């Protein structure tokens, strides 16, 4: 362009733009497939005849190994298949070979856009477009079960199938860890949040009452005096982008039993609850006394784990202690007299009972069989297999006789050999056995069969939480559709809330807290909270209909 005049440059730019448009025109028009397509299910032919009492994987006569691709929307998923005890057994039983592919939404999108979907897809967000429009790309599980494997109905939870029904009354995805109301009552599933304190600290300060805001503030001061090296109060790490606030909003609100819906059954804004704000002021005082470290707001998950495993915090409002199980156990093993225990603390000022939550009916990872699945019969067989007693025992405990035994009362315990590997060589445990890790269809009720399913350090905490669990299914999945104006506004509100919350905790005075919360309320109003709540209320009503609650 050295001697090129501006004129020449403009001209060549024009040529280039025309050229680009031409090229893009050609490319853009290439893929024009219809939007709503329902694939027809291939016929079974002579492979096997259906038997309601027998899972189809036992009947299938297909000789050659079925190769399937299974996409998991998480980069951290272990993609090995057939190299460890559990997946080797699955491979043999079902005569399949699975290639796991991992990635994020963008990667998933390349499959949709490219038109070649993996055979099975697991995603995590039941609010996402992928889940809500599953009927455009996945097979309905009912159709698959009717045609290939009616035994599926015997192993799948009716409540869960019903919950994931889309508007056409069919279910496309099936989640793991989906807990129905009955599961909450059974006592097989445990709570996961608790207020915990180091045992030595608890005793040294004379087991004071920490259930009221005043008592809490005082106790923290006491800890500071007696244990100047410890940080009196800690909590889970905050997400950097404000998408989650550790254990300082939802979890605290659960501890206080702040309701999810108001008296009329409408969405209730728990963040501005009076009871909750009374405690926020207490935490503010604790922070002002120097008993909450500012670092707790910037630590990431790794840092939090490090502090847990070295006992840096005297007390913690811990959310998902099973997630922190390894760190908690590490500290307990190294310091048996100082281990963390759950105690009563942080209770409602209005006399409400704690309403702790666990994975709800939406579960966690949701599994789909795509319409491009090369062998949908095999795929539904896998779903059935993994949910059946047989598959659950395998994925949770391994192979009977080799890694576990069942006592006459039904209690499962690991064999001495297996325990040895678990304790002495955790890496081999993970790589060679993969017990409790192949969890696309996992469920806590199987974990409850064994005393070894959870690390020792959390058992007291689970016990503390007995009878405190309360299902909140009606308010699950009530977020506005992705990409809608409401979703955008909600995202802005959530970000603002995160800032507001931390600012309140770090505020200089209670008055400042009041001002901050007033500002937050104003912000909500400016960002169409009314429209968002309308969507939420509609979805709550829909949920209730599904659940059969009036």
């Amino acid at each position: 362009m050295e001697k090129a005049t501006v004129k020449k440059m403009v001209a060549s730019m024009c040529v280039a733009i025309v050229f680009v448009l031409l090229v893009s025109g050609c490319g853009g028009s290439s893929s024009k497939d219809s939007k709503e397509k329902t694939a027809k299910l291939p016929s079974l032919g002579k492979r096997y005849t259906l038997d309601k009492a027998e899972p189809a994987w036992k009947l299938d006569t297909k000789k050659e190994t079925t190769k399937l691709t299974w996409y998991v929307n998480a980069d951290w998923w272990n993609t090995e298949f057939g190299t460890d005890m559990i997946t080797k057994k699955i491979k043999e039983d079902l005569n399949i070979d699975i290639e796991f592919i991992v990635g994020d939404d963008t990667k998933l999108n390349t499959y949709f856009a490219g038109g070649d979907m993996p055979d099975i897809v697991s995603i995590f967000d039941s609010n996402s477009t992928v889940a809500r429009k599953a009927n455009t790309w996945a097979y309905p599980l009912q159709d698959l079960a009717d045609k290939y494997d009616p035994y599926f109905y015997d192993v799948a939870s009716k409540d869960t199938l019903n919950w994931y029904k889309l508007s056409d009354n069919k279910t496309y995805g099936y989640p793991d860890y989906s807990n129905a109301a009955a599961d909450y009552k059974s006592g097989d599933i445990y709570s996961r949040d608790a207020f915990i304190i180091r045992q030595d600290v608890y005793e040294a300060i004379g087991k004071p009452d920490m259930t009221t805001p005043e008592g809490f503030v005082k106790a923290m001061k006491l800890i500071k005096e007696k244990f100047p090296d410890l940080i009196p109060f800690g909590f889970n790490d905050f997400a950097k982008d404000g998408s989650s606030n550790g254990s300082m909003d939802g979890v605290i609100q659960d501890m206080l039993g702040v309701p999810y819906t108001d008296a009329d059954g409408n969405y209730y804004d728990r963040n501005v609850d009076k009871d909750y704000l009374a405690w926020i002021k207490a935490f503010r005082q604790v922070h002002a006394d120097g008993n909450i470290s500012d670092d707790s707001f910037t630590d990431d998950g790794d840092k939090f784990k490090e502090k847990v495993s070295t006992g840096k915090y005297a007390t913690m409002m811990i959310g998902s202690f099973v997630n922190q199980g390894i760190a908690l156990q590490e500290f307990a093993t190294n310091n048996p007299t100082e281990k963390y225990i759950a105690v009563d603390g942080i209770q409602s000022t209005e006399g409400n009972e704690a309403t702790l939550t666990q994975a709800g009916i939406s579960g966690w990872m949701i599994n789909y069989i795509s319409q491009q699945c090369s062998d949908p019969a095999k795929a539904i067989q896998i779903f059935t297999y993994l949910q059946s007693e047989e598959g659950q025992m395998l994925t949770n405990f391994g192979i009977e006789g080799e890694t576990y035994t069942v006592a006459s009362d039904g209690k499962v315990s690991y064999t001495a050999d297996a325990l040895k590997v678990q304790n002495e060589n955790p890496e081999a445990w993970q790589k060679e056995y993969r017990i409790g890790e192949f969890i696309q269809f996992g469920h806590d009720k199987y974990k409850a069969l064994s005393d070894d399913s959870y690390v020792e350090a959390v058992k007291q905490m689970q016990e503390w939480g007995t009878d405190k669990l309360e299902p909140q299914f009606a308010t699950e999945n009530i977020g506005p559709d992705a990409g809608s104006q409401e979703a955008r506004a909600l995202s802005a509100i959530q970000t603002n809330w995160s800032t507001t919350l931390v600012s309140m905790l770090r505020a200089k005075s209670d008055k400042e807290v009041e001002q901050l919360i007033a500002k937050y309320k104003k912000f909500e109003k400016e960002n169409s909270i009314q429209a968002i709540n309308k969507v939420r209320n509609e979805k709550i009503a829909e949920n209730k209909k599904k659940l059969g609650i009036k």
Partner: protein
Amino acid sequence: MKKPKLTLSKPKSNVVQDKDSKLFNFVNMLLLLLFTLLIVVPIWNVVISSFASSEALAKGDFVFLPAELSLDNYRSVFSDTTIWSALWISVSKTVLGVLAHTLFCAIMAYALSKQSLKGRPLYATLGIITMFFSGGMIPTYLLIKSLGLLNSFWVYVLPALFSYYDVIILMNFFRDVPASLEESAKIDGASDWKIFTRIFVPLSKPALATIAMYHGVWQWNDFMTAKLYVTNKALYPLQMKLYEIIVQSQAASSQGLTAAVAIDTTSKGIQLATIVVTSVPILLIYPLLQRHFISGMMLGAVKE
């Protein structure tokens, strides 16, 4: 830079000049030492942390030397036997990628360095557009797919063959090659290709080394290509291992919150050890190329 000094360095006697020069050298050295120190301390902290035992790391109360050193982190990095094949992939894609990229860009840069080239404004405009506009991940994926590059080793080399930024840099270097050399070659009847290979390439070694360096480091560090286009693990480069390890500790903790599932994450020590292991091979490239950056003498001699 300190401007007042400029007046001080006005011609005086030789003695003063030497003094001035000595002072200059001293200040220069001192500032550079300070700069180096600023870099070495944090880097040292990373490297030594990778040798720290997990207890020492959890306490995190050291900057220079942890209470306890251990090779455990490295042991567990190397216990993964696939690391060697990943290293082989990384080395071959970097070597091949660098050679092909540098040559391809240099050829085009040579042509574009000539003002007389017909269509040059158009070519340059197209090039500049590529620097700023990209169709995004999805169409690129579809293109790669239709070219049959998915799950192929060549996906590391071909889509990265060209960068207009590198062309511009080379072009500017080529323009500085004395015109007299080219003219005399032309009189001897040399073709453009010959002039390029016989005169421009040898004379532009520092520039070619720079581009090779830039691209080599990019190739080495790139894991996105593997992440997007390769599912065959046998084709994973070393950096993909690092990515897997780091992302495991990040995402697993955030996505794991819903269910009461304990997901084991990789310890910080292993992360750091992996970083050291994956960085050391490429760090050797600079000392290897370094002599090309200090080859001013040779060039000066040719220039006449």
